[in-house]
């Protein structure tokens, strides 16, 4: 038991401390913000904000604000809780996928920042396929639509993969360019070609039967279960199959991979395509929940995948947990904005701060004099090293 606890602490220490520090720093920012929103310093605002965040995410409440007075009061309303938790899971599921899109890349020593673009392309493909199959039976329509989304994302991951494998262009810059490109091109396509008449804003046709099936509650959708299965499958792939071994080897030591008879080029292309497929699937889930593809699809899940992957140490289970945390924050944020009257973007700031403390993890580990394990995946070294060298 002691061994288990020690092991868990070693893995979780730095992420936990980073989260706590980020929340602390965030509360300072919230207090400062109260100057702007309430014209006076409100030291308790962070408490209110975080509590409403928690309540929105889980239904758990520990504060009672009645008539201006704040008192400690634990309560949990079952209905509210189930709604909140369902929302959290629904918000987390695409984040798991975009997190995998970055995390699997890390395992191979690649930094896939192209999640945003891959989400857009995947969503777009899913929207079009869904609209085309809108009248088909639900299983057929839905399956075709999500497969189309995954393929679209895979295609958009293939491009930077091929570029890196054959020209040495580092994925950090090429994927960012592709992100911007996707946004421009798809907007143009929707506005000029795929738009339907009728709605007040430009969007594609309804996906009809391809829409995301809701299985429980208001938004407990099928995507959640698909995601969970994919997490398990990814874990098996990475840690139990020869292909996964190749991916991990190329990330840890590309020269040894060549020596072992692996083909780094093939693996780079394959891995980035797989990453793209994950992100494309995430986009497909979002669009199929929405019911159509709007010309301007302002989603941030692609970008958030980076945070999820880093927080989750590029491990499928870690990514799942990190996605649940971030999903919870997203689910609870609207409630927080209403109750505490601070902009919803505080979530982004806190996520950024978590990453900042994770980046400084060697300092944290030194401060708590811990033998905690390093959070940043070792394979990150390969990411930086291939920035400076030409391809393997």
């Amino acid at each position, binding site marked *: 038991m002691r061994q288990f606890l020690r092991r868990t602490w070693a893995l979780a220490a730095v992420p936990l401390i980073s989260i706590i520090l980020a929340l602390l720093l965030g509360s300072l920012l919230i207090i400062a913000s109260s100057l702007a929103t309430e014209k006076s310093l409100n030291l308790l605002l962070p408490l209110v904000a975080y509590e409403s965040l928690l309540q929105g995410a889980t239904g758990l409440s520990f504060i009672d604000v009645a008539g201006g007075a704040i008192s400690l009061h634990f309560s949990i309303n079952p209905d509210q809780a189930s709604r909140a938790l369902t929302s959290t899971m629904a918000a987390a599921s695409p984040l798991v996928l975009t997190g995998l899109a970055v995390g699997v890349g890390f395992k191979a020593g690649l930094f896939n920042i192209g999640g945003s673009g891959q989400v857009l392309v995947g969503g777009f493909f899913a929207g079009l396929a869904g609209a085309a199959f809108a009248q088909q039976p639900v299983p057929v329509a839905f399956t075709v639509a999500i497969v189309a989304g995954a393929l679209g994302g895979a295609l958009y991951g293939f491009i930077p993969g091929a570029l890196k494998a054959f020209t040495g262009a580092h994925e950090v810059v090429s994927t960012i360019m592709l992100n911007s490109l996707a946004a421009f091109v798809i907007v143009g396509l929707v506005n000029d070609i795929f738009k339907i008449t009728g709605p007040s804003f430009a969007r594609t046709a309804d996906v009809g039967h391809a829409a995301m099936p809701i299985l429980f509650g208001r938004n407990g959708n099928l995507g959640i279960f698909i995601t969970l299965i994919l997490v398990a499958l990814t874990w098996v792939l990475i840690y*139990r199959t*020869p292909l996964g*071994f190749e991916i991990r080897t190329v990330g840890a*030591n590309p*020269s*040894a991979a060549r*020596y072992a*008879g692996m083909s780094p080029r093939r693996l780079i292309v394959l891995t980035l395509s797989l990453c793209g497929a994950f992100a494309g699937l995430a986009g497909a889930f979002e669009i199929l929940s929405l019911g159509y593809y709007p010309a301007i699809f302002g989603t941030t899940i692609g970008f958030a995948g980076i945070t999820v992957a880093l927080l989750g140490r590029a491990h499928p289970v870690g990514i799942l947990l990190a996605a649940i945390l971030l999903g919870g924050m997203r689910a609870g944020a609207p409630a927080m904005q209403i109750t505490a009257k601070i902009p919803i973007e505080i979530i982004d700031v806190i996520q950024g701060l978590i990453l900042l403390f994770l980046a400084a993890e060697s300092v944290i580990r030194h401060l708590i004099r811990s033998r905690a394990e390093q959070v940043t995946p070792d394979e990150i070294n390969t990411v930086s090293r291939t920035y400076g060298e030409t391809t393997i």
Partner: protein
Amino acid sequence: MTETETVTAPALEMRGITKRYPGVVANDGIDLDVKPGEIHALLGENGAGKSTLMNILYGLATPDSGEILLDGNVVRIDGPSDAIARGISMVHQHFMLVPVMSVADNILLGAETMANAVFLDQAEADRRIIELGKRFGFEIDPEVKVGTLSVGWQQRVEILKALYRSARILVLDEPTAVLTPQETTEIFAVLRRLAQEGHSIIFISHKLHEVLEIADRITVIRRGKVVGSRLPSETNEDDLAALMVGRNVQLVVDRGESHPAGPTLVVTDLKVRDDRGQQTVNSVSFEVRAGEILGVAGVAGNGQEELVEALTGLRRPTSGTVTLAARDVTGSGPRELQQRGMSFVPGDRHRFGLVLSFPLSDNLVLTQYDEAPYVKGLLRNETEIDAWAKRAIAEYDIRTPSADVAASTLSGGNQQKAVVAREFSRKLTVLILDQPTRGLDVGSIEFIHRQVVSKRDQGAAILLVSAELDEVLELSDRVAVMYRGEIVALVDGPTASREEVGLLMAAGRRSIPPTEGAAPPPDGPAAVSA
């Protein structure tokens, strides 16, 4: 003699220098003195403490006790800048030169000649560099990029760096480690001129014959202590070796006879280019027969690396053919070669042989990860892998707490044993070994050598490439000597003479039989320039 001698204060004196690191006393009460204009050799094995002592002199470390005197005055050296300011310069074993920058830029760095407060005076610097070079016997173009220079010339740039800073005391750390014999002779000439002009030179080496040739005095260090100080005239190689090592160490594995069968690996007219486009392997042909060990001897840098890369599929040859068990495998990649029965123990185990962050068990199947029985269906067969790891650890005596620890926690010797365990346990026809015991302790070396001989006796065709002549001579049934990208000789292993092979390695030829009336050339590579 009752002549009164003028007593010259030593240019440098180190008295009672002691330096401790956790777990080891690197320097233990070392006394050293160097006269002006003297070439003083510091002799010792790896880890004896020579580098630590010189780091202290150069200000990169501070002694725990003891003092340093320059021209009779006690000084404290605060860092490299301070050392340089006091006239001490160090030429490191691994050159501290920036390849993409010019000779002038490299020399100027840190001691820039300025035209004004901000800008460099390139013209004046160039002039001074050319003049310095002339003074010591060579012509140098200051604008040439250092990366394009040969190793011997880079050495000269390093020396110029020291002289540009008006160094009075030069410390040279293993200066001839990567030089050809010709270059060694030329550098020695430069050093003698420097000494004549009054510079003091500390020459760190473990090459006995060179030390005897160039030094005015020799100090031997062993395990952090000075164990003897000699004049070259009153000592010889055996004496020095005994001082250095402390006992007679002879590692000879009982090799037994080999019974080679037919040729398994045939290389014909192989040509390979290196990364810079130079033809470093220039039409090499040889064959390795089953049940024999063919050793390739040579000074590092004569094409062995590219040859090995071409044979193991990590580099495409420009022309020529390679046949493995009668099948043409020229240009095949590592995977195909491995499938055809080739195993390879790479020279750089950290870069190629192992994935240090992976557990030992994964490393033990690194080159067989997708073959049965380590794969069952779509998944890896963890049980088989673990079972094999246990067997390998026992059979090859790999010291490790378990098979699950990261390979990085193992010592160098055990890491290499893991690589050997992996490669030797495959069904192999051809085994290629590149520097298999570099940097290993004596016990591991002996173990691996025994394993190699045993593989030979099982019928493998073994190609052994090593810069350690002793290893080659000890194990090989036949020895090929590589010089400047060609095989200049193929001799029988057991009867090969060390001197003859050494000369072939150093000069590419056998000794010249004496012509009538002329004095016979002295032994050793220094005779080459004739």
